[in-house]
């Protein structure tokens, strides 16, 4: 760089790589980890341990990667800034979008970074009764435990959903320009399972 500057006698020379989609993406926030289940073992009181575990779980649940597709209205949000999804898309009757504008109109079964389009198998929105946006962690917690508002899942299925589901797992591999959910899906699944085993206490707020 300095070589070419000297050679050309120029004041400023910058090196830039121009990509097919040379676009500035939102500033990535530093990677945040999750504490492991063992980190909570020292909490004697079971209820307090359960609450602490859920607070840790909440770092994922309330991350933009998860909230964006658990909207309170019909329209999801997108990006780290959680702006309304543009174009205007909606949940539709089955969570997979409106006729003529399904999620799969743009999203395929994996991310496609050249077009900056995220994707995962069965890319879709959570049903309205599983809406998380605009809710406190306590509200979300009680909702997760409520069969009528958690997709009719029992705890075993919930543990599987959180720890194994591919669409949930996308949150840790969201593609360029999107901050991954903290930790790993494995850690998240273990924390969630530990919470279910600790009495599923929910924060008041």
């Amino acid at each position, binding site marked *: 760089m300095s070589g070419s500057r000297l050679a050309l006698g120029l004041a400023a020379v910058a090196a*830039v790589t121009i990509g*097919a989609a040379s*676009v*500035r993406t939102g500033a990535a926030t530093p990677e945040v980890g999750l504490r492991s289940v063992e980190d909570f073992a020292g909490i004697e009181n079971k209820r307090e341990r359960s609450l602490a575990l859920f607070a840790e779980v909440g770092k994922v649940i309330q991350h933009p990667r998860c909230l964006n597709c658990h909207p309170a209205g019909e329209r999801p949000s997108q990006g780290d800034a959680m702006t309304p999804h543009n174009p205007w898309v909606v949940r539709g009757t089955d969570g997979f979008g409106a006729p003529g504008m399904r999620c799969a109109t743009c999203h395929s079964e994996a991310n496609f970074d050249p077009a900056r389009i995220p994707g995962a198998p069965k890319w879709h929105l959570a049903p309205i009764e599983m809406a998380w946006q605009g809710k406190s962690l306590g509200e979300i917690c009680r909702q997760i435990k409520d069969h009528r508002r958690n997709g009719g899942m029992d705890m075993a299925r919930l543990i599987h959903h959180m720890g194994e589901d591919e669409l949930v797992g996308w949150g840790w591999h969201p593609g360029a320009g999107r901050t991954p959910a903290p930790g790993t899906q494995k850690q998240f699944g273990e924390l969630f399972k530990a919470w279910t085993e600790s009495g599923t206490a929910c924060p008041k707020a």
Partner: protein
Amino acid sequence: MGYESTGLSRREALSTAGALVIGLSLPFGGARAQGAPQAGPVDPNAFIRIGADDSVTVICKHIEMGQGPYTGLATLVAEELDADWAQVRAESAPADAKIYANFNFGVIQGTGGSSAMANSYDQLRHAGAAARAMLVLAAAQSWGVQPATLSVEKGVIRHAPSGREARFGQFAAAAGRLPVPPKVTLKDPASFRLIGQDRKVSRLDSVAKSNGSARFTIDMAAPGMLTVVVARPPCFGAKLASFDAAEALKVKGVVAVKPLSSGVAVYADGMWPALKGRGKLVARWDESAAERRGSEEMVEAWRGLAGTAGTVVNSHGDVDAALGQGDLVEAEYIFPYLAHAPMEPLDGYIEWDGKRANARFGSQIQTLDQATIAKVLGIAPQAVSIETLLAGGSFGRRAQGNAHLASELAEAAKAIGPGRPVKLVWTREDDIMGGHYRPLFVHRLRGSVKDGAIAGWSNTIVGQSFIKGSPFEAMMKDGIDPTMSEGASEIFYRTGAFRCDVHIAQSPVTTLWWRSVGHTHTGYAVECFIDQLLEKAGQDPVAGRLALMDNSRAAGVLKAVAELAGWNGPGPVNGRARGVAVVESFRSFVAQIAEVSKGADGLPKVHKIWCAVDVGVAINPDVVRAQVEGGIGFGLGHALFAEVPLEAGIPAVANFDKYRSLRIHEMPEVEVVIVKSSEAPTGIGEPGLPPTAPAVANAMARLGLGRPSRLPFVRVA
């Protein structure tokens, strides 16, 4: 008029026109050499080709980029020719300024300033009338009857007394051998059966544009053709310092990497390998002369200038004294850089064999593009043919004084060498980050209201000039670029003392005219400010304007739109307020009323826009309506959402995710009335746009949202 002043003999017509003719293809323009003088009868051979199959092909000197000239120009010919519309076709004219000049531009072939129909109205009617006369004469000679005894209707020549009739194709060849009549009589407008008739003439390009068969520049292909994308500097005013192509050349399908004056060109056997290759390219840029300010710093600098006296464009009365009396009202309006972002990004196709070049693209100023390609390739302009293709929108972007696209295209051909057809394609990111923006403008307005009347008006305008230093600099007088203050230097309203002054701001950021040019900002500033002054003076927005107006056509559209909308004050009524604006641009008059409410998200929701237009004779009322609908949508979308902000000199938006475009659910209902007029036709490609944003803003003021002083209305922090 001049069309009747001198005679052009058939021989001259043949030698200069290479003969058109009825039945033959026109050669490309260069072959025409030093030819026909400007004045003289219109040679129909240059504009009309009639086939043995009865088809009537109209050679269009104006680019079809959506605004409808193919249909409109063909309508003019078909009217005077009495052609059967079902047989009418349109085709682009070759680049040849001597024959296909835009009379508004001098001896330059080009499209812009909403002038296509206005400058062709007489010319193509004369061409159609001459061709009709030649067909009639040929038939009369063949049938041995007097021409005056023949009639023509819907493509059929008829001799009523004998019952003989023939279609055009039968006499096309014979007509082509006849001299062009030195003088023809045009129809009385009262007898028009196509011009001005609603829904009689459908667009010639609708079917091809509905089934995918319409061919645009990006669709060009040829054996051995290379697709080219160019890595250009990240900021304005930077230049290529050096580059490393090693990794780019390893990409499968990449054929070559060459430096151009605009950046580094990657040549590949398709778009995807070209893009991948460009992604691997490392380029270093000399940014020593680059703009490094962000938009915010530029706005502050422009505002600083707006506080000082500029070059006076127009003034009367003692403004400073007037402003000292009564109630002073002040406003400031800030307009961002805007990209045109036509759906088809800039692109071009060229073949060059070392001696001659043939370019095919959406050339909007053919004469400048032709000369530029010739200069780059070191050949004569006559050795450069341009086939003007359908363009996927322009909004001003393809009308380039510096012909930078043609230049880059020719350089790309030159760098790879003769015999390799080249297709140059810009991506959307190249387009939105690539400058040539509607300039950033600041308006400072001051007015005074005394005893319920406006006593003074002062408007200081600051922005860059894209005319200065361009081939259009002759438009400037006394250092004033008229496109910066058009619409603001003379206004409809009697305001007491008046002054409009301008400052030309400097920046390496490239700027360009953008649909409706100066009116994009002056229309907003003037119509918002007059509304604000009238509100202060306790006047109704419509009646108050009318009381201050002397211009009968402006008043005419304002009254017409008020009647159309059933104007009964600005409201709000049931949460919906109405705002009005009236703007003259490109000699057309347009008034709009917008009905707006506050949406659930707190943002303005525009429900409906009523519009009255006076474009003189509306050649095709439905195309006029379409252009108004489109102009409103384009104007509203940008007013609501669009901005190319610079951060440290670099555009912070690159694609439609952040350079937000109006979408269908944001499009208001539109109702248009075309005021009857017998004035000469004027344009409508641009004039539908300027009143939209101020009409919406004036409604917003009545909703308590205020007239936004900074555009766009919806700004992301």
